[in-house]
């Protein structure tokens, strides 16, 4: 049984309509997607009040009372060209197993929470999270008279984890409501070799003075 009994194949008006309509939908669709976007205006619910951020780092050529942070850099550490992510400063420490990376970062407040940061670092070396800060072994140190904690994390998965070993000194400073992070990451041997130099570097730090100090 057939819908059309004519045997000779030929163009049918119904097909042409269908063809034209489908092509039109396609072309109009594509063309409508080619429209350039423009500047838009709208009213939005009120956002949080603007609070000037704490200075992020020493500025150059800026009339400011803030002094730059200073430290004594170990002789064989070198600055990383172009910096690294959010770091205020980044260095590399040489080693036969590969260089270790040292970064100095400062964030406002508690930088998202100390426990969350600890678990993030533990995750980076392939360790499971802890449920309380007390569960994480931490060595007390003082950095420019501020109490600080040194965390030493070694991967149990060797080089298969993203980072083999990590040293972090975190310094929460109430004076300026900022948290400073000094971090060394790299191959276990290199980090072990530079651990004392890293601690010496951190303890040589002199923070910028704040008006309250």
């Amino acid at each position, binding site marked *: 049984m057939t819908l059309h009994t004519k045997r000779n194949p030929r163009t049918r008006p*119904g097909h042409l309509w269908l063809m034209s309509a489908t092509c039109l939908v396609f072309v109009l669709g*594509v063309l409508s997607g080619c429209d350039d976007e423009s500047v838009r205006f709208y*009213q939005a619910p009120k956002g949080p009040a603007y609070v000037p951020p704490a200075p992020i780092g020493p500025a150059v050529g800026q009339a400011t009372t803030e002094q730059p942070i200073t430290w004594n850099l170990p002789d064989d550490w070198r600055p990383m060209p172009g910096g690294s992510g959010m770091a205020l400063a980044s260095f590399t420490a040489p080693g036969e197993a590969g260089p270790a990376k040292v970064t100095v970062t400062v964030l406002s407040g508690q930088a998202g929470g100390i426990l969350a940061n600890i678990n993030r670092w533990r995750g980076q070396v392939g360790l499971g999270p802890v449920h309380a800060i007390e569960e994480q072994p931490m060595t007390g140190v003082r950095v420019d008279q501020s109490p600080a904690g040194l965390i030493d994390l070694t991967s149990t998965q060797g080089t298969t984890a993203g980072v083999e070993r990590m040293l972090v000194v975190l310094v929460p400073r109430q004076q300026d409501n900022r948290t400073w992070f000094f971090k060394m990451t790299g191959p276990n041997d290199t980090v072990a070799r530079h651990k004392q130099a890293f601690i010496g570097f951190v303890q040589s730090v002199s923070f910028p003075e704040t008006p309250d100090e």
Partner: protein
Amino acid sequence: MNKQIKKILAPVASLRLTVVLFALAMVLILVGTVAQKDMGNWAVVNEYFRSLWLWMPIGLGGVRVPFVGGYTIGGLMIVNLLAAHAVRFKLTWKRAGIILTHAGLILLILGEVLTGLFAVEWQIQLDEGKSANFAVDIREVELAVVDPSPADHDNVVVVPQSMLEDRAPGLPISDPQLPFEVQVLRWMPNSAVTGLGMAEPSLRENNPATDGLGKMVIAVPQPRASGVEAGRVDFPAAYIRLSRAGRDLGTWLVTQNLERLGSETRQPVRVGDKTYLIELRFRRDYKPYTITLIDFKHDKFVGTETPKNFSSEIRLVDPTVNEDRTVLIYMNHPLRHRPLNSRGETFYQSGYVGETTTILQVVRNPSWLMPYIACSLVALGLIVHFGAMLWKFVGRTRR
């Protein structure tokens, strides 16, 4: 008349054209897949597949050749298929399977065009106890100029990313809605920031910023996040010069590099007696409802770090439909919600940060059913076609 049309359509209906189009599609898919090594998934989708044509790299030291994009190939396939039906195929019961299969293919291609044009995917990232009344598109940024002076709302003017990145150097963006002209001096599709005092001397000396954040940090271009780096997104940055009626309002660094770490990225710009806040941020879509994260749970298989289940208990308050409800969103159990005078949206549990922050994906795709219908039609068509052939074969064997 019919003969004339048939004569015109004959070359378009050619089977050779079909084969060429399939070959072109295979090349496009191969090159588009390899391109994800260097480009983000969405950049590849837009540049290779949702485009009429593109400059395709051929692996010879940056040499590129023009090539047809996905829209062109898809469009020509539809024309080719319909022309073939008009010229060659007959509308008979015997052909019903083929017609159904081809209808399914056409619907599949049209569905992708409609998805590309009308589907949106946003993200809401929430800490426990926090609320949000907007979602963001992490694939795109916008320059927002906010006038916070009204007591009960903010007046916002946004310049889309496409205008910032495509602007010819020296040509300012001016609009009656903007309180000043914006000239993009340098655009970085992905960037990192470093303290200015610690940056290389050459970077410091060439720092174009004269105001705001740019006097404390410097942005350095970074390679764009590629499709093989799961979870990485681009953080664009721009150096922009602002001016009003020929008066220089300074050169500013705008970047949302600091936003992800909770730092303030809005910068105040004084124009006359008014202060505006400028910010480069992920593109926002404000919602008529508010979502609050009550609790986020992240369960793992015992003794491992393998995620077993993660779920978000949220409170949805939408005054437009008098709705105030608590919902648990978890894997394969999304929340569907339709505000008044708006299309429905679906909220999927997409990811998490740490133990207390959830990432919800908000999706709106008016053509989401089309691929299902199209694939069903193709499957039905193939069953009918091969069923009929089998029936015919069995009949012949019996005789």
